[in-house]
């Protein structure tokens, strides 16, 4: 078995080091080594988005990323989304508008939605739907998710004025 690699990275703003096999995915390490189980494995093939994280600000499926690629990079996960006890407006809106049923897709959906709003604070419904097309939800039919993202965007634009 190949020797483990020593990786230094930043996760949710904090410096982090871990050991991983060359074949370990970032999702494996987050879940099994770092106890960050908010990212879920729904498919392991980049089709469902339940494992969404950001890598230097870019939305990625952590199941498609090798853990070793985290060296020197900045990673954010769902665990880094709320500011202490204060939920991110997207998290709050998802609760208020019942944009989750079982909740398994929710962490990935929220990470993906935040990545959208970070670069496009005023998305159209079509833009939201296509941006989130890589995040599967089997419970909601997406209606309340899309509404929650658009309502959050409107609220954040209002607050920014």
């Amino acid at each position, binding site marked *: 078995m190949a020797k483990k690699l020593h990786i230094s990275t930043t996760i949710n703003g904090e410096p982090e080091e871990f050991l991983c096999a060359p074949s370990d995915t970032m999702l494996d390490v987050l*879940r099994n080594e770092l106890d*960050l*189980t*908010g*990212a*879920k*494995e*729904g*498919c*392991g*093939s980049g*089709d*469902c988005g*339940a494992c969404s994280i950001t890598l230097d600000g870019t939305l990625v499926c952590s199941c498609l990323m090798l853990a070793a690629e985290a060296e020197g990079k900045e990673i954010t*996960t*769902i*665990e880094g*989304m*709320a500011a202490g006890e204060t*939920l991110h407006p997207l*998290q709050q809106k*998802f*609760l*208020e*508008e*019942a944009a*989750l*049923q*079982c*909740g*398994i*897709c*929710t*962490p990935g959906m*929220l990470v993906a939605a935040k990545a959208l709003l970070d670069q496009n604070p005023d998305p159209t*419904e*079509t833009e*939201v*739907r*296509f941006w*989130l*097309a*890589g*995040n*599967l*939800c*089997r*419970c*909601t*039919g*997406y*209606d*309340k*998710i*899309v*509404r929650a993202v658009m309502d959050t965007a409107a609220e954040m634009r209002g607050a920014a004025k």
Partner: protein
Amino acid sequence: MSSNDNKWIGESTIRPDGADKVTGRAAFAADSTMPGMIWGKVLRSPHAHAKIRSIDTSKAEALPGVKAVMTSADIVDFPIDTPFPLGIQDMRWMCRNVMARDKALFHGHPVAAVAAMTEAIAAEACKLIEVDYEVLPHAIEIDDALADDAPILHEWMEFDGKPSNIAGTLEHSKGDVEAGFAEADVIIERDFTTRPVHQGYIEPHACLVSVAADNKTTIWSSSQGQFMVRAMTALLTGMNQSDIRAIPAEIGGGFGGKTIIYLEPLATILSKKSGRPVKMTMTREEVMRASGPTSGSKSTVKIGVKKDGTITAAQGTYWLQAGGLPGAPVRGAVGCALAPYDIPNGHTFGYDVVCNRSKVAAYRAPGAPIGSFGVECVLDELAEEIGMDPLDLRLKNAAKEGTQAVHGPVYPVMGYVESLEAAKVHDHYKAPLGPNQGRGVASGFWFNAGGESSAQVNITEDGNVVVTTGHPDIGGSRAGIANICAELLGIDYKRVSVLIGDTATVGFSNLTGGSRVLFASSMVVTESTNKVIRTLCELAAKIWDIDPDAVEWEDGAARPAGANAGQFDPLTLAELAARANETGGPIGAGVQINTTGAEGGFGTHICDVEVDRELGIARVIRYTVLQDVGRAVHPAYVEGQMQGGAAQAIGWALNEEYLYDKDGKVDNPGFLDYRMPVASDLPMLDTYIIEVPNPKHPQGVRGVGEVPLVPGLSAVRNAIYDAIGVRFNDLPISPPRLAAALDMPEAAE
């Protein structure tokens, strides 16, 4: 109490488990770990149908890091000739499904399992297990399984005195069908097929099991019923149920597919053998190959009407695929097919057909969409034939209070007619359509279910409330229960915590399934809360030294029931709780009942599609779900059920299907090629909630979750006909089929 008087029932409150779910803290089954935990992996059959001559595990056992290996020899055998039903399953089939015994019945059927220090070692060890197979011819499709020279899956299975793949039949009959057809002015008979579709929960099956040296066992798993997990695991491993504590992890979607177990007995045996906690998770590929989809079907439906639209007779014959072991949802197909209509002469007949696919599991109104599909398609064609609006045709024949259904029951008060009337006047139904656009409607029915439920309501010392129920919360039921308990106690819903108990901490509760959870759990929670309120009134009576009957509970406090009872300041829940130790001790009540009175549910859907003639894609551009829900205790989650069901129906109608290769192996075992709807495939899904309270329920609740899958398949299909003039009788209406149909003369623009 009218709904206008309610403060919490009917409010879309924030769910009690919400903050954990949006911050990634909620613990789903695969999120749990234990000290010393090792990993289990399953070796699966590479053949669709094969005899297992022998299994040699010695090389796997010798691999460093391997801690335990198991085969079907470790699982309790339930003999074929002795039925052993457990809920909707039979242990004879369960013991052969969790691990193949003498025969592998589908590609992906488990044949052995390994536990090792890492997942990689366990996977490596699986490759070292030597299985000697005698490969047999396979039957994947219904016609393959019914052919005269079909490979017979089970030598003990006979039908009409001959070896057969037909495992059983079910029939409903009313009146005289032949006489009814003789009265008809127009009769239409058509053949239909639907494909097996997967429930598509995003969370793969997973569990963590710890068996201690004294056999005391803890199971964390994702299921629709911790008591089902306990019972089946105990039976398959030969343990006492009292030695097993099954803890329901948060469940990442089920839709019926988690009313059955796969990994739990294997992990239990591996944990027992290794002396270590064992975690097992399925990959998506394993989920798609080896967990239950719902049946594929073929059917023939014949309906006769008079010129004025009166149905004189209706008949449906259905063949449903069960997978490798018996148990297709024939009851749902033959029972729900004609249920929305008042039909004087009706007959439905269904066959349960085994084939070399994974054993089916329940999927949202199991069998009902299959039964309904042909009926709603034929009605659409009949409406056109006699020149009647399709909603008017349904209204003309709609079942109502007092109607005797073809499947037997006489209906109580219900809101089916209301759903049709609301559809007729809905803006959606009157909106203009553009080129290549079409509109379809359909209705549907599901039985709904009652059954065993338990709850405990405890008042904390500081006067707040903890409710424990026994049903995994799959779509927000905790929020609905909090609303009901807060309403009855007259307190803020935030003071009510709702938890899901495990098998050791709450009384027996049947599955989360059949649209029964809010119906049944609100009955037991209501009864428990009312007992608590009686106790609180008695405590106040003691403090005031008056008769308990002279105390009433209102607005969160005990009050004298009128002037004659005396003049006392109200005693709030918090005040009474604080004095409980001096007035009588702990305040709490538990109730366990076998609930009854879950009446059937009805809904009507309107669907608009636009057909892209260049790409052969039908896109749903507007959709409205209208349904009688009895009472919407938490409207947002009621809407969520209606929207989610419609989305699954759209997927079933337009895209989802398994592709098998010539060796009987699923060719598309992943989300990329098994195409469920994504956000960009769907429009907003409008809902119209009708509330005709169920008179047999304290809050008027009816089941909600399953009905909205039923009409969707045919609503989409009927809309495509309206758009391009082609009646598709085979699902899915996927781009290759649609593109081919666009070349037909009737599809001309």
